[in-house]
């Protein structure tokens, strides 16, 4: 059994190391050397294809407001998980962990989105069970 688990762990390591199949290459768009955490007020949600976008206003260290665009998953997956414009109202505060875009604009991937009370946009997959 121990062998099986070790083998499985090795396979999973390989699986994780393999690039994952998103609509586009994140490595081409976002910079691994620029991890970023942003805390700001949600100003707009675009539930659009192929990726949704969350827009937030962030107060910078100089006190000025910067607008950031956060790339998120496909709207279809969000709908199926019960997320829509009513469940994420404009005006709430969110914390975004992600990576900044390589092109230097105020754009980032939204890897984790956290509410001030600690809840995260983070759930199990929603696909139906596999068949017999």
């Amino acid at each position, binding site marked *: *059994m121990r062998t*099986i*688990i070790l083998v*499985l762990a*090795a*396979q*999973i390591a390989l*699986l*994780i190391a393999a*690039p*994952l*199949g*998103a*609509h*586009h*290459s*994140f*490595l*081409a*768009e*976002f*910079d*691994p*050397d620029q991890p970023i955490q942003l805390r700001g007020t949600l100003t707009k949600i*675009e539930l*659009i*294809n*192929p*990726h949704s*976008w969350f827009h937030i206003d962030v107060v910078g260290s100089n006190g000025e407001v910067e607008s950031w665009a956060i*790339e998120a*998953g*496909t709207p*279809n*997956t969000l*709908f*199926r*998980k019960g997320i829509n414009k009513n469940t994420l109202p404009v005006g709430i505060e969110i914390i975004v962990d*992600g*990576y900044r*875009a*390589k*092109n230097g604009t105020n754009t980032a*991937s*939204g*890897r*984790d*989105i956290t509410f001030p009370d600690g809840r*995260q*946009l*983070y*759930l*199990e*997959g929603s*696909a*139906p*069970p*596999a*068949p*017999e």
Partner: protein
Amino acid sequence: MSKGKLHGYCVYFIIAMFGAIGTVWSQAPPSFDANYEPPRTPSGQPDLQGVWSNAILTPFERPEEFGDQAFLTEEQANAYQEQRRQQTFRGDRTVDVETDVSHAYNDFWWDWGTELARTRRTSLIIDPPDGRLPALTPQAQRRREARIARRAEHPADGPEDRLLRERCIIWDGNNDSGGGPPMMPSAYNNNFQIVQTEDYVLLLKEMVHETRVVPLDGRPHLHDSVRQWLGSSRGRWEGDTLVIETKNFTDKTYYQGASEHMQLTERFTRVADDVLLYEFTVNDPQAFMRPWTAQIPTVKLDGMIYEFACHETNRGMVGLLSGARAEEAAAREAAGN
């Protein structure tokens, strides 16, 4: 050896044999009900209509560690499934940063499915018996190397250097896996809808809105000179199985290394109220050393299919091309200093 001792060994042997048979018995892979009667359309065809999901944790190729094991035992399957859920779905960040960026999102954004096929197969590929892709022919290998070299040299000069899915044309995969048909699962939108009439079957794949209108009336394929992204599909019923033959592909899709001469045979069989068994065979002597077949038990989805209007706001393409320009500018500046 005394007679009594020999007798004792025989008893142990018989008990051990029964134990082994019993273990195998209890671990026999689940199968579908061969006597299942599918619902039928008014014209008497099996009714395959509805939305089906092909999201599945079963790997495409059998991991080498499973050797010649085509099916997992129940214990192995439970462990494997749980490990894959935990390791791939929890947003684990104990990985190198490039892998983390490749993940890009946590599981909230992904929808890979949550279970292995309950057939407990170790791979989607069911033939060859080793569950792995056959070798490419030398010419297909050369084509692959040329594609990879071209990509390395021109990663993002313009949109046409990028993957077909990034261009919202059809879904293709990483690692030069190319695009379908066949209908393969990916990170999300793993759903397709079937609509039937007596003379046509309509297939709509949610991911990158791939649509096929398949005649069932016996008409010939398009002329060989007409090549299409999704090929030319013609269907027929073999008993209660819908069979779709597709050819006339282009050289831009190269599914798993296939050439434009790939002949694809897809089989759809409703094997339970909630299961549509999807099998496909790739036959392409110019690309593979032998034909191969994969199987995905797709599951009825209690919900609708959504539009995936990929071109709607494809900002990712702008982001990655401008990212490439920014990197080039930084490299020039570094070289000048």
